[in-house]
């Protein structure tokens, strides 16, 4: 099943959430209506903010939600090329031993993914209290790059510093990496926190994120995927699209919609409402990405 038909199937089957198509306008089909699926098309899955270790009323199935999400990814009719978790894998704890226990438990659950190319980035809950030390023991570097089928991926760490800064060293590293890229290179950036001031009143920002965005702006084809805010959100900074992901533990309110940034309550009539993950499809003929939001489990 080619990716375009698969997306339609998901919608028809009532499984998929809203499809966000960034300017594709049916570009997946050629002038004669035939599929343009090529070997370089691919898709990946983004999951975020599982907060393994959290317990409380906002999610009475805190122990079951992540396994259900893993099962949902495994049940996709087409396997993604890779899976990425964009931070807050675990819920914070002051106890370094408990932190490592949670990271180990999280890893054991996600090891059940059939896709074996799985990438991780930390969130502040994983890394801010120990400069990412425990995260690195389990998952390696907190910022890195990789290539996949013509796309240059950059992972930024805006959480190991508890003051939510990338820092001058990492910004210099980013600048050096970008110098090696063509101006029209297809670049995807992963971060945990928003790189722009989405709503600093709720800590939805990166203190020096504007410097990273400024480094990225000269490049024509940059898209950012991130987490942290526990909801789907789409915003542009100039020509750069930023897409935040839903969480796998509890949803958070829309910015400024209520006085405090408290979790949205669990609705027993609509379990897992507001939670989910997404497929992101890359097509070399288009510089933007087709995003399909998917629920933790079918309704």
């Amino acid at each position, binding site marked *: 099943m080619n990716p375009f038909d698969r997306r339609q199937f998901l919608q028809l089957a009532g499984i998929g959430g809203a499809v966000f198509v960034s300017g594709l306008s049916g570009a997946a089909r050629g002038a004669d209506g035939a599929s343009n699926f090529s070997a370089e098309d691919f898709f990946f899955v983004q999951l975020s903010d599982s907060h393994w270790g959290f317990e409380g009323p906002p999610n009475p199935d805190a122990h079951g939600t992540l396994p259900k999400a893993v099962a949902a990814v495994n049940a996709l009719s087409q396997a993604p090329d890779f899976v990425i978790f964009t931070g807050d894998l675990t*819920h914070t704890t*002051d106890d370094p031993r408990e932190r490592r226990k949670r990271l180990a438990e999280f890893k054991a659950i996600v090891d059940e993914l059939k896709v074996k190319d799985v990438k991780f980035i930390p969130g502040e809950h994983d890394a801010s209290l120990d400069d990412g030390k425990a995260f690195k023991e389990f998952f390696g570097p907190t910022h890195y790059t990789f290539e996949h089928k013509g796309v240059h991926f950059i992972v930024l760490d805006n959480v190991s510093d508890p*003051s939510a800064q990338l820092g001058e060293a990492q910004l210099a590293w980013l600048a050096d990496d970008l110098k090696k890229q063509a101006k029209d290179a297809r670049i995807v950036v992963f971060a945990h926190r928003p790189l722009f001031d989405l709503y*600093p*009143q709720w*800590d939805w920002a990166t203190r020096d994120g504007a410097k990273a965005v400024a480094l990225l702006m000269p490049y024509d084809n940059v898209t950012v995927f991130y987490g942290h805010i526990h909801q789907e959100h789409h915003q542009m900074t100039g020509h750069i699209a930023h897409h935040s992901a839903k969480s796998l533990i509890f949803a958070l309110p829309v910015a400024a919609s209520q006085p*405090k940034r408290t979790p949205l309550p669990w609705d027993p009539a609509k379990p897992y409402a507001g939670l989910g993950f997404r497929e992101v499809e890359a097509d070399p003929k288009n510089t933007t990405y087709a995003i399909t939001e998917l629920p933790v489990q079918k309704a």
Partner: protein
Amino acid sequence: MAATAALALGSAAAVTAATRQPRVIKVVAKKFEFVPGEIHVRKGETVTLQFTAPEVPMGFNLADFKLRVDIVPGKVATLDITPDRTGTFTFLCDVFCGTGHEEMSGALVVT
């Protein structure tokens, strides 16, 4: 004598007005609240916020006025603010400090 006394009092008042210090409001940043959690200021009034953090490093961030300060245990951090508009404005801790960090916020009420 009376004129001299009046002049002296007037001079004293002028000196007092010239050297009047901003109102100081002491704020403690502790896990996981600011004490006081509400700070009341008049529009146009300059106040000096004096912060202490008895436990771990924290931050005070008043995003609506683009003001922030780091609060480090053992040191008093100060921040002068002169709000130029009325309203209720959120401030929060912007240095991750533990499990209750996300609840650590307060309100600046400007009237």
